């Protein structure tokens, strides 16, 4: 067991740090810090994505044949860790990490040639059409229908909680193409153009005051059959593939560590935290969070060791995701408690990094309550905490 980086990895780490020092601006860092919603706005990440793409680092997880940098798992980890610790903007996962792997695995050469470069460059902006008003955790019971009509599918129905649908020019969606005894067997994976006639979008405001998610309505939307990925009625397989592709990746502990560092800095310096700064209970909660971040880092490094050695990390990855959610919610909750009464003063302007004039309190303080409220969604997105518990009970603990 060895905790030290090799000379090659140390050199790579230095290279990443030098790149960040050159290309990460204060404005980008500030914009990311003041992002309380799950995903970052293009105004914050756009410049950073362009710089990464110019360097050939736009898609760390992609294989080299499709434009990835050909990094080892350890190099991917180092890159994600350094980016997170430096407070770099987070790129959107919908194109780069969700639809792209499916297109690589199940798409036709024509689809790969057309879509992948546009995802890599950021020319296409993707959203994910999965959840529906009647199908959240029970996603297989989705009802948005795609009826075959000549060389097109005609799509009717509705998707909800669609992040950034109001910005996106493309959507990948799970749609029903057949009514089957097992609902999963009648689902297809379809790529849509968001400019198609018949698509309308209703914004949804979250508890944190952000417009990030939407409801999307499809009224007889014609989608060319060339938008079908994989075989008809085999879309559920594509969706499940994503979970396998993600396994072992996604090192979230460094991002939490950065957020804890930002909170510590705020508590140590802002006058609004004068009372909390020396409160033993606040300090104990800070320590407890840091201890869990250290523990999560160890767990993720052990997963990395398995991935590097070609071993399947197993179901511990689902445990890690659940722990990460817990820490994120504990962190945002602590920030509110430490701020106390001042956390009740609400600033409605969004995004917060565009706040002009004198808002009375610094934006970092105004972001505390929205940050806590938006973090309530962490235990719901990508599978609710309760579903995760069910999965872990079956797959990790072997319960009947």
């Amino acid at each position: 067991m060895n905790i030290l980086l090799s000379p090659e990895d140390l050199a790579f780490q230095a290279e990443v740090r030098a790149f960040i020092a050159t290309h990460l601006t204060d404005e980008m860092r500030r914009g990311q810090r003041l992002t309380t919603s799950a995903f970052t706005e293009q105004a914050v990440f756009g410049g950073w994505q362009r710089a990464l793409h110019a360097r050939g680092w736009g898609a760390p997880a992609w294989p080299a044949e499709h434009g990835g940098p050909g990094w080892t798992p350890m190099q991917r980890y180092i890159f994600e860790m350094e980016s997170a610790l430096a407070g770099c903007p987070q790129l959107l996962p919908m194109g780069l990490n969700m639809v792209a792997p499916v297109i690589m695995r199940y798409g036709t050469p024509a689809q790969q040639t057309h879509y992948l470069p546009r995802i890599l460059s950021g020319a296409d902006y993707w959203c994910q059409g999965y959840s529906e008003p009647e199908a959240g955790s029970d996603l297989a019971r989705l009802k948005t229908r795609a009826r075959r009509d000549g060389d097109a599918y005609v799509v009717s129905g509705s998707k909800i909680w669609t992040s950034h649908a109001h910005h996106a020019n493309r959507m990948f969606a799970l749609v029903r193409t057949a009514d089957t005894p097992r609902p999963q067997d009648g689902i297809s994976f379809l790529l849509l153009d968001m400019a198609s006639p018949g698509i309308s979008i209703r914004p949804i405001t979250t508890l944190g005051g952000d417009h990030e998610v939407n409801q999307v309505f499809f009224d007889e939307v014609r989608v060319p059959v060339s938008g079908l990925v994989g075989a008809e009625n085999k879309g559920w397989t594509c969706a499940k593939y994503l979970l396998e592709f993600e396994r072992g990746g996604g090192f979230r502990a460094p991002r939490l560590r950065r957020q804890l560092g930002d909170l510590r800095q705020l508590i140590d310096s802002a006058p609004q935290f004068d009372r909390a700064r020396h409160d033993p209970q606040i300090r104990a909660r800070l320590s407890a969070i840091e201890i869990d971040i250290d523990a999560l880092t160890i767990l993720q490094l052990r997963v990395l060791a398995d991935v590097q050695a070609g071993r399947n990390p197993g179901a511990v990855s689902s445990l890690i995701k659940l722990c990460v959610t817990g820490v994120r919610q504990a962190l945002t909750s602590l920030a509110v408690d430490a701020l106390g009464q001042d956390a009740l003063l609400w600033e409605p302007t969004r995004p917060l990094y565009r706040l002009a004039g004198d808002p009375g309190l610094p934006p970092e303080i105004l972001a505390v309550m929205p940050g806590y409220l938006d973090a309530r969604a962490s235990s719901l997105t990508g599978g609710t905490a309760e579903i995760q518990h069910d999965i872990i009970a079956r797959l990790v603990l072997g319960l009947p």
Partner: protein
Amino acid sequence: MDLAFSDEQNMLADMAGRYLAGQPAGSWPDFCQMGWTGLLVPEGHGGSGLTLVDAGIVAAACGAARMTAPLLETAVLGVRLILGLGRPDQQGAWLPALCRGDLRLAPALCEPGGPDPLSSTCRAARQGDGWQISGQKTLVAGGASADLFLLQARDVATGRLQVFAVPATAPGLTRRPGQGVDGRPVDRLDLDGVPVPASAMLDAQPDAAAGVQSALDAMLTAMCFEAAGAMEALLQATIDYTKTRRQFGRALAENQVLRHKMVQMKLHIELARAAALHAALADGTPDQSRAASGAKARMASAALVVGETAVQLHGGNGVTDELSVGLYFKRLLALRLQFGGPDHHLARHGDLTAGVAA
């Protein structure tokens, strides 16, 4: 960087598990022969020269088996006190004998006043060429078979903490046998002007505080590994019980609430074990103390949740002394509180963090 266990470490875990499965109480001669007493002793002194991670692997196996002999007290706390504070002649006299089992020693650092050995109220006064030591010690494990007690006391003249090797037969030393909540023999020691020669002080350093802290850090970390092993065994026992026990026409394990409680137990165990590994990897680095307190705090909170939940899920049988569940629970309570519980160590982690920031 590779955080997978090495082949040797996997073999160590495997061998320890199989030995203790056949003989949960262990035997001291076996421990010596397998190299467990000398895990952290350098090879030059007859030991295996292994790391705190390796000691943790053995500790976890001991926790899973509820091995009750004071192995960690000797092999981790005692050895690290000697290595950190002992003069070369003391190391040469004690370490090889300890490895062979010819010498039995018992650290006696806990005092009734509080969990922090560095706040000792035991007094050491110079008397001629030697010292007289007075005060009280508590929760001393291995006292019945000890040849030597390693204990700390404060030099009344300088205020500095020092560590002394006090023979079990020393005049003025009274051992009061007792029992811990976990059923293990733990003694109180009353020291009433116990005379020790100057040579009995472990004085490789002018002030023993840092050495005591460092040895304690290693012990805290080893205890966290023991607890992780115990918690994992307790979870497995709970899974087995709930799959077997049937009420209302189905196994307890088919009830979602209970399944989720067992998942919560697993989360606590994984985080506590990872915190212990983090602390073991920090051994010998500037982050050692902070990581050790972090691990102890995390283990303490996990131990309570895991222990209480296991008892609860075993129903009526869980609150008797008839099942191993209760025995694991009580051992976890001891590990949780000895040398400081969660509040103490969270505060210490916070103080050390502030010190780092400053």
